[in-house]
């Protein structure tokens, strides 16, 4: 045991000590050596001073999900792409299949993106723009270049506000499961889509996001999508987020509706 500990990184030791401290409270000490071993066996990840994986930095998805989250061949101006939906099929209820088709046909004006509205989650994650994660022990703030969108993911143990609130980006409450950030989201409106081909949800949308390091510069991003008003069962999507490594990289702006006013405010 002593040798085993010496071989761990200092971060892992911190994790182990943190685990020990919490296990004394939770009477779950039996699991701590196992958890520490798991940490030692995984790829090294950047760690925050509190021992949690440090998600801070600039990230972006590089795929074609913004156009269509399912498998699709290229069309003029639209790159083809392998979908991000697990198994590719989205389990729509029969009425929702028809609604998706209607959305597709009217997409030139019906897509909320064409009005520059906040695009909802998870669509915001795979819009073709970078975002910046700023992490503290109690909150993970995500700043998006796209329409200055922002998400506060509270990791301070607070719960969703009660009742139902119609928000474009929902309410995010996170916690750590080992080295994975797990975020529970509810309180959505029924106005946002998943992509530009009309995949949609209702205000009963419930998401569980999982962020975990594949290596220091890549995050696996996985989302479980649940919406009993629209789908017959929960389904999953997953994609890889890439760290921007360019020297002096920073967010710029994509003020979508601001372009309409360029001549009014020269």
């Amino acid at each position, binding site marked *: 045991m002593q040798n085993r500990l010496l071989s761990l990184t200092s971060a892992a030791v911190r994790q182990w000590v943190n685990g020990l401290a919490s296990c004394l409270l939770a009477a779950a000490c039996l699991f701590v050596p196992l958890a520490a071993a798991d940490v030692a066996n995984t790829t090294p990840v950047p760690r925050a001073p509190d021992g949690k994986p440090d998600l801070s930095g600039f990230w972006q998805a590089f795929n074609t999900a913004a156009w269509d989250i399912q498998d699709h061949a290229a069309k003029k101006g639209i790159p083809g792409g392998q979908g991000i939906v697990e198994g590719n099929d989205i389990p729509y209820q029969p009425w929702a299949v028809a609604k998706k088709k209607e959305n597709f046909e009217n997409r030139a004006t019906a897509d909320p993106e064409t009005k520059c509205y906040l695009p909802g989650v998870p669509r915001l994650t795979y819009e073709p723009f970078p975002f910046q994660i700023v992490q503290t022990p109690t909150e993970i703030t995500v700043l998006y270049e796209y329409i200055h969108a922002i998400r*506060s993911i509270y990791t301070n143990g607070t719960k969703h506000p009660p009742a139902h609130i119609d928000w474009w980006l929902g309410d995010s409450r996170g916690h750590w499961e080992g080295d994975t950030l797990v975020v529970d989201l509810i309180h959505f409106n029924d106005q946002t889509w998943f992509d530009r081909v009309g995949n949609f949800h209702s205000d009963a949308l419930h998401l569980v996001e999982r962020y975990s390091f594949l290596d220091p510069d890549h995050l696996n991003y996985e989302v479980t999508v649940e919406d009993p008003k629209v789908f017959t069962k929960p389904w999953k999507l997953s994609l890889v987020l890439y760290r921007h490594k360019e020297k002096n990289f920073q967010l710029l702006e994509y003020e979508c509706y*601001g372009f309409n006013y360029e001549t009014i405010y020269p």
Partner: protein
Amino acid sequence: MQNTINSIAGLSILTVSVLLATAPAAAQSPTATAKASAGALPLTPDGQPNLQGYWTAAVTGTYDLTDPRSGGSRLDEQVRAKDGVARKPKPSRIVDPPDGKIPYQPWAAAKQADLQANVDDPTKPEHIDTQARCLLDGAVRPFFHAPFRIVQVPGTVLFLEEENHGYRAVPLDGHPHIGENIKLWMGDSRGHWEGNTLVIDVTNVNGKPRLDMVANFYSDAAHFLERLTLVDANTFDYEVTVTDPKVYTRPWKIAARFVRPRGQGSDYEIWEDACHEGEQSADLMVIPADIAKKEKK
């Protein structure tokens, strides 16, 4: 000028390194370290003077920089004036020049006066305040609009607005500004600490956001140099020098005190304020001049 900025930035890296080197001591005895280096002011875990949390201008409102109040309180005053209650104006936010006025070039003074004359009965789209269209407010105006939040992590200071979810990330690492052809609504901010003062250099502005509701304005040649000086745990002083050779005859300066807002403790959460998504009315306020004339007859 650029060289001066770079050398200041270089100094700030040195300062940060020194602070980082003393970080373990801070971890052992944060209070003692704070007393020794910053006159009993609170520090963040990485050794920055601690500006975190919610703040509000002691005098809020962005109706008019030279006559500070909010649009709402101006309406209240108009109602009270009908009852014969005189208003008591607060001093201009502008401390330099001493007359409290913005030193516009003649053409710019005429433009601002024309826009201000049409604020209440707009006849053209440009008479509408940029804020009423949910456009970003730039670097300076958010300080006076409403309470806001500061978050500090190593290497970055964040300013977070509840209104219209505006944000500004200020890097402290001294890397150069972005290329001059990239113009931004919020500008490009670089910060460094000089003792208890956070100095922020803002360039690359697009010149579109108005400074207040009476159309005080700047151009894409403007430069803001901001100084946030922590006075005590619950007070900071803000000062910004505005330079814009296209619009003003000389640099000018705003100064204001900031305090902790009531009712926004550490457990307060900024909730989503989807401004553009609900904005339906700004263009409906515009009544073309010919129609407005007929209505007045």
